[in-house]
């Protein structure tokens, strides 16, 4: 279990400031949500913190190490990411076996067969799925494979980039329960991007509301139902979400 802290994360391209200034702290083993409308910079924060994008200022620490200073291999074994769209995050011409064995080969880990089977059973898939290709699986099964891929290097921190928004509602619940169970079993720290407050309410202890690249307010889960947000934008967002839930 490792805490994550993001300090003064900002992106400036020329004169344009794309992400002004983002800071937040996530305790070890916590699930922290990032919510906001499209284009508010939620996914950008994850892509910067995971070093997929490297042109940013500020500091992101996992445990007591900055992600910038970490060795690439060590960073890969510390943080992993689950992407939004399971149709785009699995290589269309690679079997599950290839998807899972690649990271093991890169990191030179032994007992590959056992590790692959363990990762699949962790996400509730039988080991026969090793020989399937992405087009032979449903969306939920693909997302399970994507989660297994993130698990196989045994990271401490998982970044979840809207892991359920591309899935059917019934499958969403399965994946969310799976993620909650994995956090209990393995003690992951989650940072979860979502625009669905119901998902955040189900998963996260605390969450930050983002608007145009800024964190407007950090709230507790309990603040949602009572809508105890102080900032007008956060209150508006939560109010809209609550009103929507009532209509549905």
């Amino acid at each position, binding site marked *: 279990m490792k805490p994550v802290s993001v300090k003064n994360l900002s992106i400036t391209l020329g004169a344009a400031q794309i992400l002004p200034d983002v800071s937040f702290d996530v305790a070890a083993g916590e699930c922290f949500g990032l919510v906001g409308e499209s284009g508010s910079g939620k996914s950008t924060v994850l892509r910067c913190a995971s070093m*997929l994008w490297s042109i940013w200022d500020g500091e992101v620490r996992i445990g007591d190490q900055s992600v910038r200073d970490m060795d690439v*291999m060590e960073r890969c074994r510390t943080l992993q*990411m689950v992407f939004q769209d399971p149709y785009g995050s699995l290589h*269309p011409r690679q079997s599950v076996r290839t998807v899972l064995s*690649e990271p093991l080969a*890169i990191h030179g880990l*032994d007992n590959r067969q056992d590790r692959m089977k363990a990762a699949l059973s962790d996400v509730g898939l039988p080991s026969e799925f090793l020989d399937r290709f992405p087009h032979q699986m449903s969306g939920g099964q693909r997302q399970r494979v994507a989660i297994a*891929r993130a698990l196989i290097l045994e990271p401490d921190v998982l970044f979840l980039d809207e892991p359920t928004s591309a899935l059917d509602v019934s499958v969403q619940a399965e994946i969310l329960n799976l993620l909650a169970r994995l956090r209990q079993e393995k003690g992951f720290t989650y940072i979860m991007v979502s625009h669905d407050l119901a998902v955040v309410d189900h998963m996260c202890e605390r969450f930050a509301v983002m608007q145009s690249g800024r964190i407007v307010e950090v709230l507790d889960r309990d603040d949602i139902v009572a809508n105890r947000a102080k900032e007008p934008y956060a209150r508006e967002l939560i109010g809209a979400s609550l009103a929507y839930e009532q209509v549905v």
Partner: protein
Amino acid sequence: MVTLPLGTARRRSLPHGLVSLGRIAAFLFRAPPSAFGLVVLALLILMAAFAPLLATHDPYVQDLQSTLQPPSGAHFFGTDELGRDIYSRIVHGSRITLTIIFVVSIVVGPIGLFIGTVAGYYGGRVDTVLMRLTDIFLSFPSLILSLAFVAALGPSLNNAIIAISLTAWPPIARLARAETMTFRSADYIAAARLQGASSARIIWKSIVPMCLPSVLIRLTLNMATVILTAAGLGFLGLGAQPPLPEWGAMIATGRRYMIDSWWLVTFPGVAILLVSLAFNLLGDGLRDALDPKQINKR
């Protein structure tokens, strides 16, 4: 313990490849044009493999007693100005044609794929340098460039092959780059990077398999051009040298007797036409067969 899973993976992936190859062949046979291309190509390969058995005469032996004989039972396609059997020369010439096609594809495919994927994946300065280099090669008419090259190195079959390779890779590099740019921001590439895969590993394992179908199609369509360029170089005396039975060179020497002895140019010409047509049709068929939108349905 470590080798065991690798072994099983290989054993299982081979039938999958064979199965999809069989599916592609079945798909090609369903459409008459691509079936024609496949049949002609198969005949060409068989002809080259069994050339000594199929040929009725030695392609190099001259018989000055029977020069410029019209097609008959003894000489299916007639004889040329030195009394050599044209049918046997065409049969043996298929070996030269196949060699040219094979070597050019072996050279051009990997070079084009490498330059294209590297340029597309890295982008920025690498892309600029590699693509301007490609532009320079593209800006020469390919026949002129190969002519200049062969003229500089001296006329021979090997130099013709090098010259053709030199002019045939840029379109493939362009294609591979365009394909790579559509994939490089995909989530599965990001996931591979998050797993610590090096750029070389990502290009080889993730990007090349995605570019391969379109590069193969392009290569097949290119074959027709390669055959025509090789024949053109042979015709101009810059390709295969006499007495090699290269089809283009056969037309060149037969040109002088064309008015009286039509068979000297007609049969090699028909052979060139058939083979380049077959490759074009096969390429078109492959494009349909390897279409990623359809490949999952079969």
